[in-house]
């Protein structure tokens, strides 16, 4: 459940192991660029029957709306082209800190008042931050008084963040402490080394929350400037799901975005360069397990190979116990608890990654099995039975992917931000059904090159 590779793996006492079971929901969302992008990938397929309305607000913002009155609640998200890819090497961590601080003082309201006004009406607001996107989401009861108070706070946070100096200093210290802690933990070390190795100088390779040295130098001015440059109505995507009418949704979208700057700054981001040779990095760590990541830059959102790679990856390492990687690593050999592969499509080529954790002494064996499984899959493609199983799961399981307001809101954000067609959900099962084994094999051969992959092993035995 908490496992990012929770692909049907039996789970032990997940609540227990989190240490503390909090009985009430909290209004903050944890940061997690990689995890967030996995979630986005995970919900990609869709369902016929979600009626999406879309329009452009007077402010210039793009709006996506699904009207549904089953529950007396409303979900809203507003996202901007302000993710970690907009960081620059001198000011790493600026994008992340800007997003997280917007709610900590806005429109003259202190962070405490903002938190109280939300909690007083039972509303939940949280920041989200990924490589491409950054923004806020809000869940509130739809009854007039609660909705009004919650939307008022969200509007203030989006359009009038203050970045109070004292809060900037405190939060910088918290981020720096968290970065130092992350630098001791094998999973974080592996993620950071992997991104850096596959992307080089491209912003996708930068640590999303920055480095200790760069965060220490950030100023209130830096955050304010970044906010003014990137949080503009022209790049805003407003997603609205739930118990309001079209007219109410139109008014909400205007209200949330009218106070934003109109135009977004135009800054080119370099192209993602493909890898030209294999590269292996072994990092020592005293942990009992080695964390192994293998991969390369993968595909963009809207890529013509997307459906073939998505379906093929179900067979390779995305389909849990149906996948070859989990069968070879776990079912046949007991080498790991979790083993997976995924493509995480982004504005530019998002990562393709194979990952597993195994007992230190088994690291080389597990790595070899993973590599051989990938090579064999690219050579053979999926069998007829594997292809059928993958299609059945994705197509028949379609209604599960949009059975809650939370999931639909997530979709609206992805479709809006990545300019996917409004029929994307309705089209999905058909597109999956059309893919052939030959197309999968062909797409993998062209897009994944086993002789040019990055391999990161944290906690490997010393050589």
């Amino acid at each position, binding site marked *: 459940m908490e496992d990012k590779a929770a692909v*049907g793996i*039996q*789970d*032990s*006492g997940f*609540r*227990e*192991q989190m*240490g*503390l*079971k*909090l*009985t009430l929901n*909290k209004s903050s969302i944890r940061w997690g660029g990689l995890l967030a992008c996995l979630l986005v990938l995970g919900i990609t397929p869709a369902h016929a029957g979600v009626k999406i309305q879309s329009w452009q607000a007077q402010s210039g913002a793009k709006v996506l709306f699904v009207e549904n009155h089953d*529950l*007396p609640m409303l979900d809203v998200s507003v996202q901007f082209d302000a993710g970690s890819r907009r960081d620059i090497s001198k000011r790493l961590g600026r994008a992340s800190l800007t997003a997280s601080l917007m709610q900590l003082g806005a429109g003259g309201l202190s*962070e*405490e008042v903002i*938190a*109280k006004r939300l*909690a*007083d*009406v039972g509303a939940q607001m949280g920041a989200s931050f990924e490589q491409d996107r950054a923004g806020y989401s809000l*869940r509130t009861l739809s*009854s007039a008084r*609660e909705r009004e108070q919650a939307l008022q706070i969200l509007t203030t946070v989006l359009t009038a963040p203050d970045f109070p100096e004292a809060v900037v200093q405190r939060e910088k210290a918290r981020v*720096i*402490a*968290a970065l*130092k802690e992350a630098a*001791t933990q094998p999973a974080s070390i592996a993620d950071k080394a992997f991104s850096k190795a596959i992307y080089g100088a491209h912003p996708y390779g930068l640590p999303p929350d920055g480095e200790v040295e760069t965060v220490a130098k950030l100023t209130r001015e830096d955050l304010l400037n970044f906010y003014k440059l990137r949080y503009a109505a022209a790049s805003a995507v407003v997603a609205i799901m739930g118990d309001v009418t079209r007219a109410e949704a139109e008014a909400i979208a205007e209200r949330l975005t009218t106070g934003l700057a109109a135009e977004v700054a135009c800054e080119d981001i370099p192209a993602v*360069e493909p*890898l*030209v*040779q294999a*590269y292996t*990095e072994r*990092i*020592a760590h005293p942990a*009992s397990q080695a964390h192994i990541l293998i991969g390369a830059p993968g595909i963009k959102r809207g890529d013509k190979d997307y459906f073939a790679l998505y379906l093929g990856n179900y067979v390779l390492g995305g*389909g*849990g116990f*149906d996948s070859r990687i989990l069968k070879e690593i*776990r*079912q046949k*050999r*007991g080498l*790991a*608890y*979790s083993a997976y592969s995924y493509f995480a499509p982004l504005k530019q080529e998002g990562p393709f990654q194979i990952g597993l954790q195994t*007992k230190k002494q088994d690291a080389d064996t597990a790595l070899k099995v993973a590599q051989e499984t990938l090579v064999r899959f690219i050579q053979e493609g999926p069998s007829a039975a594997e292809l059928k*199983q993958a299609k*059945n*799961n994705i197509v*028949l399981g*379609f*209604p*599960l992917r949009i059975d*809650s307001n*939370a999931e639909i809101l997530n979709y609206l954000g992805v479709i809006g931000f990545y300019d996917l067609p409004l029929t994307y959900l309705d089209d999905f099962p058909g597109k999956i059904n059309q893919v052939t084994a030959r197309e999968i094999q062909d797409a993998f051969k062209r897009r994944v090159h086993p002789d040019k992959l990055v391999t990161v092993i944290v906690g490997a035995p010393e050589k």
Partner: protein
Amino acid sequence: MANKLLKFLCMAWLGLPLASFAASEAQEKILPNGLKVIVKEDHRAPVVVSQVWYKAGSMDESNGTTGVAHVLEHMMFKGTQSVPSGDFSKRIAAAGGRENAFTNRDHTAYFQTLEKSKLELALKLEADRMRNLVLSDQEFTKEIEVVRNERRWRTDDKPHGLVYEQFMAVAFNAHPYRWPVIGWMNDLEQMTTQDARTWYQRWYAPNNAVLVVAGDVSADQVFKLAQKYFGPLKAKPLPLRKPQAEPAQDGTRRLTVKAPAKLPYLLMGWKAPVLRDAAKDTDPYALEMLAGVLSANAAARLPQSLVRDSRIAQDADAGYDNVQRGPGMFLIDATPSEGKSVAELEAAIRTELDKIKRDGVTEEELNRVKAQVIASKVYQRDSVFYQGMQIGEMETAGLGHRHIDTRLEKLKAVTAAAVQAAAKQYLVDEQLTVAVLDPQPLEGKKPVAPPKGLHHGG
């Protein structure tokens, strides 16, 4: 002024009924073999969740075979007399389903989420593995390796996981909550197929299980299907469950755990009551509201006072779960800011608790927590899976699913005086256990920069 107004508005809203959106009541039926079937109809989406809960968790284990409840959970996917190993998962996946299972201290549960017309498949497969599991040495030998790797990943290499495990082992002397759900590594190394077999034969029976089905189904149809597939299974005599009551604690216990990390970590826990009678109990509700006042929102006392005002903590949270079979714990965990010690942090937490014991909590902050409780009742309905979870947890804790709403009503009725009294009565040093993470340096090598020629143009 503004705050007073908010308080008034909030109070007015508390009394507002949500009648027009009222959810349907769950329906229940007990089959002649003792299987309790509970159906929660929810027709928002054409989806159904099926969950089989066994009242057997790590608290039913014995020393020497800790972790066997969870190992058996893994083995439940390894084949029956008619469904070969791995086929359970394969058939559910082929029907478009998602499935998984989890083991806790109090229970083990297996679940599938499917398009609504596929429910029968899940019930047929679950009924089959309730009785006909095949436990082969060959499958066991491989799967126990997976579980050992799970333990390394989940606990051994996670500093906070290690602290929690050691904390529980010190806080409890006799009660089985003292060992981890995943089991001690040595027990996992010594475990045999026969241990798993004994566990399965002892606890896996219709009269020790609850079937919860939630989603776009009709209760009558579910009862018929349950009878068809689970009905033929015979009830078994269940072993006597002894209480293993924890002896009274009479002084603070302290422990330190060393692990590779940068930041220290503090975990404090006080023995506390849990719900035994959801309608009559009062203290567990007061403690739940106390946890809420301490950390249920960003303006609550711990984040406000320790993280923002004094900046002594990087993070600080309170947690308390009163729906469980075993004894309860009121927990506070926190990470000191850089340059602050755990001793300073503990002193600051004690100061916050003393304030509540001395001055109580305000109506305003109590109402804020109640507003969240009430809203969460609506939000929870966005997830059919969660609705099933709530039912299963209340049932396996012996409280009964009919009391899900009772809990909310009782929480809404908690007074500021009751919260203060609960803090005074339960958050006392005699009942306290304190665990500290003493972070150790890695002595690892610094990562090197990737070579220049790795990328085109790089």
